């Protein structure tokens, strides 16, 4: 009897062009998403005399280097003018659809893929960015690749990959009020560690995952890479289909019906076997906030930062000491009450309309604390327009937040948006690495509601008590 197959196996196997031996396969890529960081592979492709094999499966936007300054013009981020000109020219020459500044479709690549219906259940999606795992929230196998692999996909529409092992994480029970998908995934990373998912494709399942809306599932999958898993995914269901119906690039008419029939067969079989299983009681999760320089260094907002003296392993003790030193925190101190200088609401983790609604609900009728710089950077032009139609921009501006233009911005600080040295930021992003938001910047990761609560309080605060 054929053993049961997982969601991941079904999608993976459908994209195998050839087995190459040694556990490797030649995989067909059904969606290749590109961004303005992809100049090097495009140049190299041309230099090698190669052409883009499947431009109709390739889509590009501008996000990493663009200015997010209100009223931006093409000249606002002049340091990157050459880079933007390059990708525009190369994309046009190759017949790749590029969503440019000012048009719906422009935005963070992991926001626009789902939003446009480019990211579909059952597809294999790659992009030269590690947070490509985000798209797994729609039931796709999606993963980040490096520049050489981007060139490989451009030239061949394929990739040489080793099939990862399968992990299933089941969030059972019900989330408490104030607890978001961001808190679920940060809690998981804290539990299994930043390397806990290395070598696995992770399927998120269980009642608390089924209950998530699509944007929340995207957030959940977004941080898969922060536990070392290149791939995270959630089985498609009625919530998925409802989200996708009518989106610009989603199938329509008879194609939609055919897709639905296919998608309904994708969830893992009852008897599917996983190499590792983790179960988490979603009801026991409190709002999370990181205290250190790895996403695994996380606590519930009502807890204390650890004391390195309690860590027996010398390398780990040293890592805790170094993190506390960099972050300017005292061993064993409560994390709540720590004063903040910056709040950043944005990034491919949390810049979608539901994220902005959650932050606005906290900000409404309140004021950003004296001395705190608080930014809201919508994930895409479409998110920005929707938020403005709902009046969320006014809510933020009235509260003293800065309302900006869509892009990656201060998440990776590539475009010049940075947190100054030594200053502390509560960010809805996915990486609290040393120097990530600017040299010497101190980052605490949290949900949009927690970030808004920090902006209002001027310190790290428990959103449930606001």
């Amino acid at each position, binding site marked *: 009897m054929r053993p049961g197959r997982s969601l991941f196996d079904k999608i993976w196997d459908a994209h195998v062009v050839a087995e190459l031996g040694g556990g490797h396969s030649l995989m067909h890529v059904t969606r290749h998403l590109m961004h303005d960081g992809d100049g090097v592979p495009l140049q190299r492709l041309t230099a090698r005399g190669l052409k883009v094999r499947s431009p109709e499966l390739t889509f590009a936007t501008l996000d990493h280097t663009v200015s997010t300054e209100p009223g931006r013009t093409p000249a606002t981020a002049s340091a990157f003018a050459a880079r933007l000109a390059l990708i525009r020219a190369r994309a046009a020459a190759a017949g790749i659809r590029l969503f440019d500044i000012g048009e719906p479709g422009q935005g963070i690549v992991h926001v626009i893929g789902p939003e446009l219906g480019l990211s579909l259940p059952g597809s294999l999606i790659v992009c030269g*960015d590690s947070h490509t795992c985000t798209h797994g929230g729609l039931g796709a196998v999606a993963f980040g690749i490096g520049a*050489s692999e981007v060139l490989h996909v451009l030239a061949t529409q*394929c990739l040489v990959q080793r099939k990862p092992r399968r992990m299933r994480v089941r969030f059972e029970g019900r989330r408490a009020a104030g607890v978001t998908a961001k808190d679920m995934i940060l809690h998981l990373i804290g539990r299994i560690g930043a390397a806990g998912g290395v070598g696995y494709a992770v399927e998120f399942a269980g009642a608390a995952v089924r209950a998530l809306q699509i944007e929340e599932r995207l957030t959940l999958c977004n941080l898969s890479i922060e536990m070392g898993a290149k791939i995270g995914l959630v089985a498609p269901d009625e919530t998925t289909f409802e989200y996708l119906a009518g989106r610009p*690039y989603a199938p329509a008419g008879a194609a939609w019906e055919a897709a639905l029939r296919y998608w309904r067969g994708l969830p893992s079989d009852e008897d599917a076997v996983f190499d590792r299983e983790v179960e988490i009681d979603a009801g026991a999760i409190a709002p999370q906030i990181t205290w250190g320089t790895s996403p695994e260094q996380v606590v519930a907002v009502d807890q204390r930062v650890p004391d390195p003296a309690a860590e027996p392993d010398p390398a780990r003790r*040293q890592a805790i000491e170094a993190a506390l030193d960099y972050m300017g925190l005292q061993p064993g101190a409560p994390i709540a009450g720590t004063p903040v200088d910056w709040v950043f609401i944005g990034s491919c983790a949390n810049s979608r309309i539901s994220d902005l609604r959650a932050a606005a609900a906290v900000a409404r009728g309140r004021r950003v604390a004296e001395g705190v710089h608080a930014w809201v950077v919508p994930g895409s032009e479409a998110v920005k327009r929707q938020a403005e139609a709902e009046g969320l921009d006014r809510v933020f501006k009235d509260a003293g937040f800065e309302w900006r233009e869509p892009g990656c911005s201060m998440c990776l600080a590539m475009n010049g948006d940075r947190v100054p040295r030594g200053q502390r930021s509560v960010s809805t992003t996915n990486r609290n690495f040393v120097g990530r938001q600017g040299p010497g910047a101190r980052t605490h990761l949290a949900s949009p509601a927690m970030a808004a609560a920090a902006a209002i309080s001027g310190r790290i605060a428990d959103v449930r008590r606001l």
Partner: protein
Amino acid sequence: MEPFTVLTAIAAPMPEPNIDTDMIIRIERLRDLEPHQLGPYAFENRRYRPDGSETPDFVLNREPYRRARIILAGPNFACGSSREAAVWALRGFGVRSVIAPSFGPIFVNNCYQNGLLPVVLPEAAVRALIEEVEAAAGRAEVTVDLRECTVIAPSGGRWRFEIDALRREALLKGLDDVALTLSREAEIAAHEARDRAARAWLYPATATG
């Protein structure tokens, strides 16, 4: 791509866990510099003070580790961002192999595209190597032999390591993935034709909106 066969070299200990690719190369450097110019900027935040002077106690600023071609790393080395510039910066510094208990998954693939060999050994083995190297003030060299899939400690202690046959072959011969895949175009076209027939909904002609 430069082939990798056997390397005997100074090995620098960097045992802390979760050294990320942001730490290996800062994002700003990807803006202005070409891949071959990144060596001086590897571990920039660790190697230099804000005023540009060297941080004297950072391992890669000390003799003989300045000449390291191997890094003995902690768990989850090069986690985080997919930036291939992390590999280019390490190569630019002179590093040809990193030995660690685990690696960021995208970094591993990037290594294979650039002739850098990631070796997975148990944490205890990496620690034993570090102890030996440090006992000799760094002057005892470590050997990474890809032909034999073996790491040899200065004392002669040996550890076998696993590597996929396909990746080993490509590194030994300096083969390029793209050329190999281009030669399989007929198979790719046949797969795509079958998939387009079976899953036509997945292949957009144009947007409907």
